[in-house]
């Protein structure tokens, strides 16, 4: 019996749950404390955005909404590591990354409020990103296809997809990393392992010790990272992006975090998971540790937090107003984006719908 190949999975963390540095080689970007504050603010505004969405749903002003509470470090870590020219193919829960890339809160509200225009992102770089994908893991292949396009055209761009722990079970994820490995594509797949896929816990999804090791099947660069540690996520994704940009191929990053919320606003997680688990998870949540770290550095304080909170609240109020004032599309919108040009038969169906609308309203 001879060993022909070996693998290892590493775990990356810089800040512990209390914001204490767990190693002394913090990445260079952490020296820029203004930037670190800006990142914290982005995490914060993501949380405010998210809470607003939940409350809109509770008051009947939004459809079902999947909260990203607890994902803030993963989101801003990914968002801030990416360059504008990169492309993002997110799943439905990754609003924070989208916001960081220029999707407007009103757009996300509009989408979950039931209007397709919410996916017609108006601002770059989000404008060239994929809309969030609901069919699990399908977005991974859109990222792989994008990565292939970049490689073929010699563009120094990277495609990033995010998916859940549940998503790692689906063939699309495996297919995407397999092609990325076979064709050396600039693809970075970030698994946001929040321990739950609706009611199914992480260990029922896979016997694998880590989800990062799934990338071994494709010979990608595989790392597990503390997904509640912004610095660790940002650094690891950054490394993966640089590898990809340099032509060194794709990565699978597992960001270990926790879904602090119900699955969506129509879910009640107490049906299937222990309150104590959630309490325990709150002690490790991502905002606190970064706040402590920034407090320690003397660049953040309660007054600043209060001011920023107010600013975020005001922003979300404005965004909410803008969303609520958006008139529903006319019935013709059912038809008008099906093809570039309306085929004859569909044009007749559109006419019918229009005249019924005039008749019955």
């Amino acid at each position, binding site marked *: 019996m001879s060993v022909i190949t070996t693998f290892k999975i590493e775990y990356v963390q810089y800040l512990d749950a209390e914001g204490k540095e767990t190693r002394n080689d913090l990445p260079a970007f952490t020296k820029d404390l203004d930037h670190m504050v800006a990142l914290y603010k982005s995490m914060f505004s993501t949380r405010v955005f998210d809470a607003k969405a939940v409350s809109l749903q509770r008051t009947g002003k939004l459809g079902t909404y999947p909260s990203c509470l607890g994902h803030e470090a993963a989101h801003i870590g990914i968002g801030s590591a990416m360059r504008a020219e990169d492309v993002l193919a997110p799943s439905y829960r990754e609003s924070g990354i989208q916001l960081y890339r220029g999707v407007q809160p009103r757009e996300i509200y509009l989408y979950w409020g039931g209007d397709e225009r919410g996916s017609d992102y108006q601002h770059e770089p989000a404008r060239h990103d994929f809309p969030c994908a609901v069919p699990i893991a399908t977005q991974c292949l859109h990222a792989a296809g994008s990565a292939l396009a970049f490689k073929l055209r010699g563009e120094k761009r990277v495609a990033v997809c995010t998916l859940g722990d549940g998503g790692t079970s689906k*063939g699309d994820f495996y297919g995407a990393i397999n092609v990325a490995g076979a064709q050396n594509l600039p693809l970075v797949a970030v698994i946001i392992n929040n321990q739950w896929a609706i009611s199914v816990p992480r260990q029922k999804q896979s016997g694998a010790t880590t989800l990062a090791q799934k990338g071994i099947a494709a010979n990608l660069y595989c790392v597990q990272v503390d997904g509640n540690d912004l610095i660790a996520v940002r650094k690891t994704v950054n490394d993966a992006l640089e590898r990809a940009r340099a032509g060194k191929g794709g990565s699978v990053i597992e960001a270990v975090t926790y879904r602090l919320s119900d699955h969506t606003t129509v879910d009640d997680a107490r049906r299937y998971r222990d309150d104590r688990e959630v309490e325990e998870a709150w002690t490790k949540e991502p905002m606190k540790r970064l706040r402590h770290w920034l407090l320690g550095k003397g660049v953040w304080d309660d007054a600043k937090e209060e001011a920023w909170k107010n600013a975020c609240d005001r922003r979300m109020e404005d965004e909410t107003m803008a969303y609520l004032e958006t008139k529903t599309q006319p019935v013709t919108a059912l038809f008008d984006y099906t093809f570039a040009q309306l085929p004859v038969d569909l044009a007749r169906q559109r006419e019918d719908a229009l005249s019924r609308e005039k008749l019955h309203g």
Partner: protein
Amino acid sequence: MAAITLVEAVAQALAYEMQHDDSVLILGEDVGINGGVFRATLGLEKRFGKQRVIDMPLDETSIAGITIGLAVQGMKPVCESQFAGFIYPMLEQISCHGARLRSRTRGRLTVPAVWRAPWGGGIHAPEHHSDANEHLFANIPGLRVVLPSSPARAYGLLLAAIRDPDPVIFFEPKRIYRLDKEEVPDDGEALPLDVCFILRDGSDVTLVTWGSQVKETLEAAHALAKEGIHAEVIDVVTLTPIDFDTIATSIAKTKHCVIVHEAPKTAGFGAEIAARVVETCLYDLLAPVERVTGPDTHMPLLRLETKYLPSVERIMDAARRTLAAS
């Protein structure tokens, strides 16, 4: 006996059959402790154990293929696709093996499996959750496609589907999951597959429909009666193999036919009904057949959802139009 909803009737049928047949088991996403996102498997894990109600990893391809493996080994798996809009990855396994193994092996191996899926729109669900795609399965030989529209029919037909030695796609119209209640005795009595159900007798026009549109169609029939138009309402229920005789008999009487369904019109299953009408009942017909369906577009997000779905108004208009045309 308390009246129960359609989704409770599904749960009741599952429980009955699990109680009486050890080989019945349930697999899917969130079917265990959570009881399914619609609670169709509520309490079953607790009652029958994790060995018989199995939460699967999130991959529809796997779930479909494993269902086939279980069925071939003599189990009677009831597999849940969480929404009909997520059933697509199951198609290769269902079409190439599930529906074909009996034929492929000349009867040596069989697949007594049921694939359940909450189906259709109308509950303001997120994107991709509202597909009505029964047509996808209706052209696959060796498969039954069943779509009940009342608690009693859901109960009786799900029992029949599980007991049937061949694979069944069992779509559940989730818009009416909790709409009406009726008393459904838990007596283990199956209802017959492969037959249409006449829900209302009438002499003037035959309204053919299935799934959640049964509701609007019955309402339309009721309202039409006030105008003196007597509509016969047929719930097709088992789309394939189709019982066209019942429909033909009705049309022989009414001479007029309107077909109602939620899926897009072109190549929807309504086309098959209309085709059989023109093949078989041409000389009975006094006016063109009408189809009241979703348009040939994607189910929109929730703000426009009701504009998409066939309405009572549209059904009534179509009935009046076909009668006026003769």
